[in-house]
C-alpha cells in the first residue's frame, strides 16, 4: 500500500548531511529517512533546531581574524 509520510525535505551538501546525521545520532528524533547523499527527510518542527546546531558547529571551525589578532597581541 502506498504511504505518504509528512515531513520536510532538506537539500544540502553531503558534508552538511553528514553533520545532520551526526546531530541525529545522539537524539534519534530528527531524521525520518535518509534519502541519498544530498536529500534528507526530517520532521518539520526540528528545522529551526537543525539550523541553530549547524550554525554552532560551523562557527567553531571558522577562523576569526579579530580574535587571532588579539591573541597575538597578548603574546
Amino acid at each position, binding site marked *: 500500500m*502506498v504511504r505518504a509520510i509528512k*515531513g520536510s525535505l532538506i537539500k544540502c551538501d553531503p558534508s552538511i548531511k553528514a553533520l545532520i546525521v551526526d546531530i541525529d545520532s545522539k537524539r534519534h528524533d530528527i531524521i525520518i529517512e535518509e534519502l541519498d547523499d544530498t*536529500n534528507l527527510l526530517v520532521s*518539520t518542527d526540528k528545522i529551526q533546531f537543525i539550523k541553530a546546531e549547524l550554525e554552532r558547529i560551523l562557527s567553531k571551525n571558522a577562523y576569526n581574524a*579579530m580574535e587571532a589578532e588579539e591573541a597575538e597581541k597578548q603574546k
Partner: protein
Amino acid sequence: MSSYLFKDTVNEYLENLPYSMKSKLFKSPATCLAIYRLLPNLAKFYIMSMVFHEKPVNSRIWDVWVKDSDQGKKLEVEGLRRMKSLNLITEKNNYLVLDEHFRESFRNALVGNDSHHAFGVPCATDENNKTSIDFLDEFATKKWESILHFMVGTELDELPSVGVLSLLKHSGLMEINGDITKRNLTSVNITKEGFSFLLQDVNAQIWTLLLEYLKIAETLNMDSVDVLNFIFMLGSLELGKDYSLEALSETQIKMLEDLRDYGLVYQRKASSKRFYPTRLATTLTSDSTTLRSVSSAMNKAIRSAKQDNEKDVKEEEAQVDFVSGTIIVETNFKLYCYATSPLQIAILNLFVHLKSRFSNLVTGQITRESIQRALKSGIASDQIIAYLEVNAHPQMKKLAQAALNKKIEFESVNGMKASHLSLRNLEIVPSNIVDQIKLWQLELDRIQAFGGYLFKDFKGEVEYKGLLNYAEEIGVLLYKDNANRKFFVTDEGRQQLIDYASRRTKRQKKS
C-alpha cells in the same frame, strides 16, 4: 546603480496609475518635464521627434535610428514599452500617436508658454533677510540626517516629528511601538527594508519616502494628482529662490508642512507666505549623477563658494571626486574610511567591525561576524558590495582601472580576444573580499528545507510512474528516487495527488 533602482520605483508607480489619473497629470507642464527626464535616452529622443509633429508617425522610421543589432533592438523595444505603459504614445496600425495632453503641456514647458504657474510663482517682493543657499543646505542636511540618525539608532536630542515617525512606520522601514502622536515611544526597531533603505543614495531614499507618502496621502483623501504635481514641480524649481504659496492648492499647502519635516522645503515660519526648495528637492528628477550624500553636496557647495572663480574647473572636479569616495578596502579585509559624519560611520558600523576613530578617519575590519550580523538583519551581500563600490576612494578606482588595463594589454599581446573585458570587469573592491562576503552569505543558508510529504511503498512500477508523472505535470514534485520508488511533493500537492489516485482507482474498477 542605486539611482536606477529609484527610477524604477517611480516609473513603476507612474505606470500603474490608471489612465484617467495620468491624463490629469499630463496637464501640468512641470510634471511632463519630470516624466520626460525619467525616460531612457532613446525614448527621450522619440518624444522629441514627435512633440512638434502633429501627425501620427510610422513606427518604422524609428528603426532607422537604431543600429541593427540585438542590443539596439532591445533598447528600442524597452523605450517603446516604457512610453506605452506610461500612456505617452498609442499605437494604431503601426502608426504612433503622442498623447494630446502630454504634447500640449510638454510644448508649454519647452517653449515657455506657461499659464499654469506649473513651475512655481517666484515671490515678487524681496524678503528682508534673504535665505542663502548655504543656509538651505545646512537646513536640509540637518533635517534629513536627523531622520537617518533616528533610523540607525543614534541618540538624538529631539525625536523626528510625528509625520516622519508615522511615515517610517507605515512604510515598514521601522518598527515603532508606542504612541506616535504623543511621541511616547516604547520601542524602536529598524527592519530589513530599513537597512537596505539606508544603503541607497539620498535621492533614492527621498523617492522611497515620497512614494510612501503618496500611499498615505491617498488614504487621507488627499488628491494624488495634486501631490504628484507638487513633487514634480519641486524638482524643477531653482535652488536659493523663494516661491510664493499663492499658486498652490490646499492639499499642496498641507503638504508643505510635511515636506518641511523631511528637509525638502524651508519656510522661515509656519505661517510664512513663501517657501524655499532645498537641494534635496531640486535634484529630485535630475538625470545626472545624483548627490551621493547631503554632506558631500554641502562640502562641494562650500568649497566652490570659497574657490576663486578663476580657478581651474578641473581642480574643482578633482575635489568633487575626492568627497564622493571615501572608503578603502584592502585585500586583508581591513577597511579605512575618511568620514567625519557620524551618520556614515553609523552606517559602516552596520557591517564592519570598527576599531578606531581619528579626526577624519575610521578604521575597521570586515569580519565573518560583522557581515553575518548584517546579513541576519536583512542587508543583502550584494548591497554591501555595492555600497563599498559606490563609495570607494578614487585611488581604489584608479588602481582597479590600471589593473584592468594591464589585463587587456596582456591578453592582446598574447593574441587573445580582449573584447569581453570592459568596464564591467572593473574590480574596485578586491575580488577576494567580494567572494568572501558572498560565501559568508551562502554559509548562512546551508540547507534548503521544504515542507511536504514523502510517498513510498508503491505496489509496482505502473502505480509509481503514474503518480510520479502526474506530480511532475502539476509541478509539485521536489524529489524523486526511481530506484527505490519514492518521491516527495509539496504540502499543496498532496491533496491533488490523493484525489488523482482515487479517481484512477475508481476508473480502474469500472473498466
